[in-house]
């Protein structure tokens, strides 16, 4: 069973999470539910630091043995840091999707976008309604 979605962050329908770090930046990753669906993450293609992304634009690619999945930017902004640890240990996404398996940090261009994302409770409802 997937770990509960932490209350301290926001969620997208495509199973990304975004957590405000203060000072207008967010850390983002994929949810535990998403990693459970993927299983066996063996490669994560990270974005370049400095890249500008629009909300809902592909920002990273997560590959399991069997599948290739896009990860979408939960908010618009500039990539200011990526999780280099995933290059050597992509399985961190499976082990700790909400923590050590984070993907990137984004300096938000329009912080209001974050307010438009789902709360943890709304996200849990969403995956109950459409598990895939």
């Amino acid at each position, binding site marked *: 069973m997937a770990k509960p979605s932490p209350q301290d962050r926001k969620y997208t329908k495509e199973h990304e999470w975004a957590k405000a770090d203060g000072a207008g930046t967010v850390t983002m990753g994929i949810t535990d539910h998403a990693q459970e669906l993927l*299983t066996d993450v063996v490669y994560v293609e990270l974005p370049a630091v400095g890249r500008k992304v629009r909300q809902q634009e592909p920002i990273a690619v997560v590959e399991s*043995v*069997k599948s290739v999945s896009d990860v979408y930017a939960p908010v618009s902004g500039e990539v200011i840091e990526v999780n280099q640890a995933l290059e050597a240990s992509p399985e961190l996404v499976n082990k700790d999707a909400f923590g050590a398996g984070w993907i990137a940090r984004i300096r938000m261009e329009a912080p209001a976008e974050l307010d438009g994302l789902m709360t943890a409770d709304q996200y849990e409802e969403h995956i109950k309604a459409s598990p895939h």
Partner: protein
Amino acid sequence: MKKTPLYERHLALGAAMTEFGGWAMPVQYTSVIEEHRNTRTLAGLFDVCHMGEIEIRGPQALELLQWVMSRNLAGQRVGEMKLSAITNEKGGIIDDVTVYRRAEDHYMVVTNAATREGDLEWILRARRERGWDRASVTDRSDAIGKVDIQGPLAQNILAEIVEGDLSALRFYHAMDTRVAGMPALVSRSGYTGEDGFEVYTEAARIGEIWDLLMRLGDPHGMKPAGLGARDTLRLEAGMMLFGNEMCPAVTPFEVVYGWITDLDKEFIGRDALIKQKESGVRKKLVGFELIDRGIARHGYPVLAGAEKIGEVTSGTFSPTLGKAIGLAFVPVRFKEPGTVLEIEIRGQRAKAMVVPLPFYQRRR
């Protein structure tokens, strides 16, 4: 979608299901990597009921098989099993199959799932055209169920329910025996690169054998394994998959099936293959390891400069080797191990190196 007799068991085990060759099959029960490693180190149990079985019997059975198979079966003894290609008039591969000789005039051809009906029509057509009415051709696929038990502990587990001495059964040999009291055909063979067995019995009884093996295998650490692990296991072992590496536009010499193609005997496609052998193949299937990061998958282009020179046919992350591996068609001048290739992965170029096959070989 067709369901195998084990379908409900897969659901009960919580398997993720996928479509393969028109069948609903388990892709994984827990994790492809876990199931892969478990098969390499202990044992894995696979539902392969989707594969086709065509029985060919009678005094002209061998004649008919010799005409449709690229492999020379003249020396095949009762109890032996042979890998062969079926080729069309142009030498293109329409399936790769195993042929069991079960008795003097009794053969069983095991086909891929998606090619079963085509193979049957093909063999029936050859029989009709050549007037070999003393060879009977029967599709037994629906009546026969099949499981593979693979891995270093497969023999220990299966031996508990097989009549006769399983340890005396040699690689690519089969015995007609009883499994859990039911008439069955057991061969030492498989599609994983490990020691292991393929078990055929009545479709209506295959569930009992599955259940018994699950129970007996459990204390040994055996686990069910899905098509995901079957694919990574076969790829590491350098084995090809029809539909990926092979199709009617590809000949045995372009892949690694020269050794099962005997141009000294008559068979459909022989003339075209003789010509190709004389002029030499232009493209060749090679194994590669990615040097750069990423995973090169089925259909990704192989590049030389701006030009597309080939294509990846299968590619994955190898759980055993811990790196990305694959098979690709390249022009022959790129086929030597050590050659560096460029593969386009989502618009970016990744370097790969041609390596000898197989990627993985078990210690014997």
